[in-house]
């Protein structure tokens, strides 16, 4: 026994936890509860812990993303 304090394992580095994430070529992720107003002035309340808002304009369930951006991106790449 040296009586010396032995530090435990180092804490993991501080990580970011943003409220909004812009996904490259994809939707905007929103954490928490929000009300979104679409182009026509209709309000849409978020219903889940994280929501994905369409940024590509192609979704069939706007204002939410439905993954359609993946097809748009592919056809523009091919």
């Amino acid at each position, binding site marked *: 026994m040296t009586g010396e304090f032995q530090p435990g394992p180092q804490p*993991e580095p501080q*990580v970011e*936890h943003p409220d909004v*994430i812009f*996904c*490259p070529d*994809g*939707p905007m*992720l929103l954490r928490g509860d929000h009300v979104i107003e679409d182009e026509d002035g209709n309000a849409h309340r978020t219903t*889940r*812990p*994280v*929501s*994905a808002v369409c940024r590509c304009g192609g979704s*069939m*369930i706007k204002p*939410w*993303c*439905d*993954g*359609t951006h*993946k*097809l748009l991106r*592919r056809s523009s790449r091919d």
Partner: protein
Amino acid sequence: MLTPHARGALSHAVLTAMRSADTSTLAQAPQAESAQDAHLTLWALYEQHYRGFDDVAGELEWDPLLLSIRRKLEQDFEQTLRARIPQFPAPGNFAEDFFGFVADFDGASLSGHVQRKATKEQVCQLLRHRTVYHLKESDHTTWLIPRLSDRVKAAVMELQFDEYGAGDPQRLHAHLFRRGIEDSGLDSEYGAYINEAPLEILEENNAMSLFGLNRRLRAASLGFLAAFETTSSAPSRRMAAGLQRLGFPASMVEYYTEHVEADAVHEQLAVRTICGAFLEEEPQLHDDVYFGAWTSMDLEARYAARMLKEWAA
């Protein structure tokens, strides 16, 4: 749920031992007769760690003879799965590469058939097969949680919380499926249709448990999750359209429309905040993430090919 019907010598021996609570006979267990025999046995052994069987004593979950059979079957299965993998992308921009890898996958798919041509009988058969997983949807991913760092653990919980209805049992995905199944006039009792599950369904379910229950395979489990979520929104939309075309009840349609929206979120989380973050911490497990992803897509394509052939579609 009661234990399923045996599909060969090994499952017969194991299920009989489980029901009688006398596993001593398994010290000399027979060889599996077929892939079905092996996978039904493995499925039943895994099931002890989920909801279990009404006709099997709870103590047998950790019976050493049963565990040693499970281990052997798992090793064979993992070897089979690893023998099926293609060339994976080299480490780079993970999210972009991963979405590309999934988009490039070329395999049979059932949702287009359901949307346009499937009969009501075919869709009922498909839904009965799906009950094996969807009535315990997401549970295999929950096994992983204690095995992850703080950051990845929180990210997985963020996704899982949505799968579990954000705490509201009415919105829990497995429950949405159960309601749809009931309203469709099918049996929603957990495990009700296991005896008609084909090999490919058993393999799919066993892969999820294999990856979820072995800490060593945590990267494959995360990759499986990411591919599963990334291949869900568009097929779910086609499923919903097909169910509507065939006059299925609104609750069954809603299970799929919920997944169009939810999985467009989940795919971003699974690829970016979960697998992407995980690989920053454990880059040496890059290929295992792809192993899990490939397995998810390949097993689903095998199931789809089997059903399309059976239906001559």
